């Protein structure tokens, strides 16, 4: 290599006469590198040594043990959690959606469909469609399990509920009140069904969604909603005025609540607020503990514009 660079530096021919052979010899060397043995390098970024140890631990079959790690049930009785989300800032005009199909139905009477990802009540500043749910609950109050099928309807090429919560296994009547056919596609689930005009089909969520998952209609790609399914049903979606209520939470033990909003700039839509009182984390979680039969109102929670995408 250094031979080469010297040749580069040297520009005029005087020295060429004796450098040329050197250069050529080096070139020969290069051409004869066909045999040079590749010394293997390992996966970039991985710690090969640690991986070896780990492999040992993985191959030793230990008795499974309780992997779930559900919180140990301590307290007794039930409490209710209330709160209200306010949007601090100007929501601005929500953009109209690109409707290029079935317009005679989808924009009936000139009603333009708009993007509903940020709904703020002009009067109360309340922020709608914030999802709040308990990450882990040791106990579930059986009586609270609702039996009635939840109706998830679509009308004028719009899912009526932009965000809806249900319990795992709870029957959901996915309905289509339009005179045209739709399909409902719940991401990450087994469900992507044709819903003929005016009909519905029953669906029971078979697994929990971590954070809310997207629901779309592929025939009308602008149609979008979010669904969240929880085993324990400790989940609430904030109303138009931003208020939410989760009744019958297990009392007497620390609860960690997860907060989500479609437009949140946090990871996976987690809504991070600056609220030390509730030990609010950037992952959009806060801690509470209820005493039996308490109705805990955590008051109004200001959501700054910076926390949401514009």
């Amino acid at each position: 290599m250094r031979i080469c660079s010297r040749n580069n530096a040297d520009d005029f021919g005087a020295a060429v006469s004796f450098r040329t052979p050197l250069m050529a010899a080096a070139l020969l060397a290069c051409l004869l590198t066909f045999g040079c043995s590749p010394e293997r390098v390992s996966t970039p970024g991985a710690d090969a040594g640690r991986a070896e140890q780990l492999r040992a631990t993985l191959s030793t079959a230990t008795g499974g043990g309780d992997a779930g790690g559900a919180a140990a049930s301590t307290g007794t009785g039930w409490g209710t959690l209330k709160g209200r989300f306010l949007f601090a800032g100007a929501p601005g005009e929500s953009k109209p959606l690109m409707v290029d199909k079935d317009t005679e139905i989808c924009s009936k009477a000139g009603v333009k469909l708009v993007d509903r990802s940020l709904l703020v009540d002009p009067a109360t500043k309340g922020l709608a469609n914030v999802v709040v749910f308990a990450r882990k609950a040791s106990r579930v109050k059986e009586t609270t399990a609702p039996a009635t099928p939840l109706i998830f309807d679509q009308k004028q090429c719009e899912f009526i509920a932009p965000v809806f919560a249900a319990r795992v296994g709870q029957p959901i009547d996915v309905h289509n009140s339009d005179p045209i056919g739709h399909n409902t596609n719940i991401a990450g689930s087994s469900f992507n069904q044709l819903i003929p005009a005016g009909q519905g089909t029953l669906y029971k969520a078979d697994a929990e969604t971590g954070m809310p998952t997207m629901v779309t209609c592929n025939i009308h790609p602008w149609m979008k909603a979010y669904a969240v399914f929880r085993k324990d049903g400790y989940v609430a979606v904030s109303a138009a005025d931003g208020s939410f209520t989760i009744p019958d939470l297990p009392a007497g033990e620390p609860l960690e609540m997860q907060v989500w909003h479609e437009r949140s700039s946090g990871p996976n839509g987690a809504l991070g607020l600056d609220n030390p009182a509730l030990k609010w984390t950037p992952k959009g979680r806060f801690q509470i503990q209820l005493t039996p039969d308490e109705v805990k109102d955590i008051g109004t929670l200001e959501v700054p514009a910076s926390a949401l995408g514009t």
Partner: protein
Amino acid sequence: MSTATASTTLSPDRVGQSLPPARKARPVSEFLSTYVFSKDHKVIGLQFLFSTLLWFLVGGLLALAVRWQVAWPWSDVPVLGKLFAQQGGQMAPEFYTMLFTMHATVMIFLVIIPILAGAFGNFLIPLMIGADDMAFPTLNMLSYWFMWPAFFAFGASFFVEGGAASSGWTSYPPLSTNVASSPGAGMGQTLWLVGLTLVGVSSMLGSVNYMTTIILMRAPGMTMFRLPMTIWAMFITAILQAFALPVLTAAGFMQLTDRTLGTGFFSPEGNIVNNAMQATGGGQPLLWQHLFWFYSHPAVYIMILPAMGMVSDIMTTFARKPLFGYRPMVYSIAGIAGLGFIVWGHHMFISGMNPALGITFMVSTMMIALPSAVKTFNWLGTIWGGRIQFTTAMLFALSFVSMFIIGGLSGIFMAATPVDIFIHDTYFIVAHFHYVLFAGTAMGVWAGIYYWFPKMFGRTMNEFWGKVHFFLTFIFLNGTFFTMHILGAVGFPRRLADAYHYETFHHLQPLNAFMTYCAMGMVATQIIFAINFFWSMFNGPVAGRNPWNANTLEWTAPSPPGHGNFDFQPVVYRGPYEYSVPGVEKDHLMQTDPPNAAEAAAAAAAHG
């Protein structure tokens, strides 16, 4: 024009004249005008020589990479391995496709054509016809500087998205016109077409220049039939270029517009490439093949004729004997050139072209073997009864003949249409054109370099190392290319990244490995040449004006000649091959030697 130059040549005071002070004062412009934007045909010739030799190196390395994959498919590539590390050093098939495409492109358009016409044509024509420079020095300079954009176009195409062109050097549509059809069909292909056009412009400027110079600027007494074979070859090559090239350029533009504007000259309607229905259509893929080969078949002779000419001169010099059948040699070159225009269809026997048309082309192709045969016989006639000196130049020239016989004869197999059905696009054809272009032309080029090196640099190359270079090259090239014939006999197809998954070809891997070893040896051998070349430039024994005791005019000029070439106006009295004339004390009479009685008598006797 010629008179004007003649008058300057004749002015005695310009001999050994030193630089005028005014020009000394501005060394930069002096430097530029002398070495870079020089209009001196010799400087331009050497510029061509050095550039093409560098590309020769590139093309050789590409060939090695190709051979590597053919011999040991998918095994880690040593030198290029880094490029596809995530693949574990394995060569991706589209990369292989790109390699052989660019190997052919570089070798044909950046090495063989420019080194023959550009380097030797430029350097030799004025010297051998006794002119002081080309007819159009500026055009001449441009013809070199048009190569550089081409160099950049081809060079850059290696680094664009999708890599360089990868649809073969023949660039058959739709593979080349449809951007979706292969990675290399993207920017790489466009650059390829641009480069091709520029090379074309360069050759066109050159050939116009050569024709004019040879017709108008011959020294007094230099009749057409006193021209050395080299000049005849260059002359006819120039004509071929001038007539064939425009067709390729036009076709190139059509392909370019097909790719950029979707003109669809070459794409049929409703083609589904890469699962996308093609919008445009109405074209015919075969049209490109006709246009392309209408140039590229004559181009094959553009790539061999000048070498034939040079070899004829070198053989006479070292056989110390007149060329056997000078006029038949000239006529056969002309014949090759003429027939060369009506045989292009033999590249398309199985392309879907009307089989009846195939028969026509088969006959004309058979006929073109004739002049080549005549030339070979005449070369043999030339060394018969000679006094052969085994100089390096002579050895390369002889090997040209020996190898050209193989290349010529193997061509007859392809010309036979039924046989072509089987060996078309197999290694048989690869063997054939490598015997013509490498074992033929390249050997001729080396002969030329060893022969005219003294005239170029004033020193002779080292004969011993020259012969070592010849010996090894000769052995390795036959090891590499002769075996390709039997590969072809099995039907081993060209351009396959891995042919061994076919039961038919599975057993051929060892043979291919052997060929690859030979190829490596061949490339490594050229290092000897490189060292010898650069070393001799400065340390070789100083050569006089006429180290080989040859007859042609360039040997009357100083070595190396300065501006204006000759320090006196050469006047020609005889043909270029008057060796061993009876009754003359020295065994050769230069074209400029004034006639004498003995010679006249002998000539009379001989021509009776």
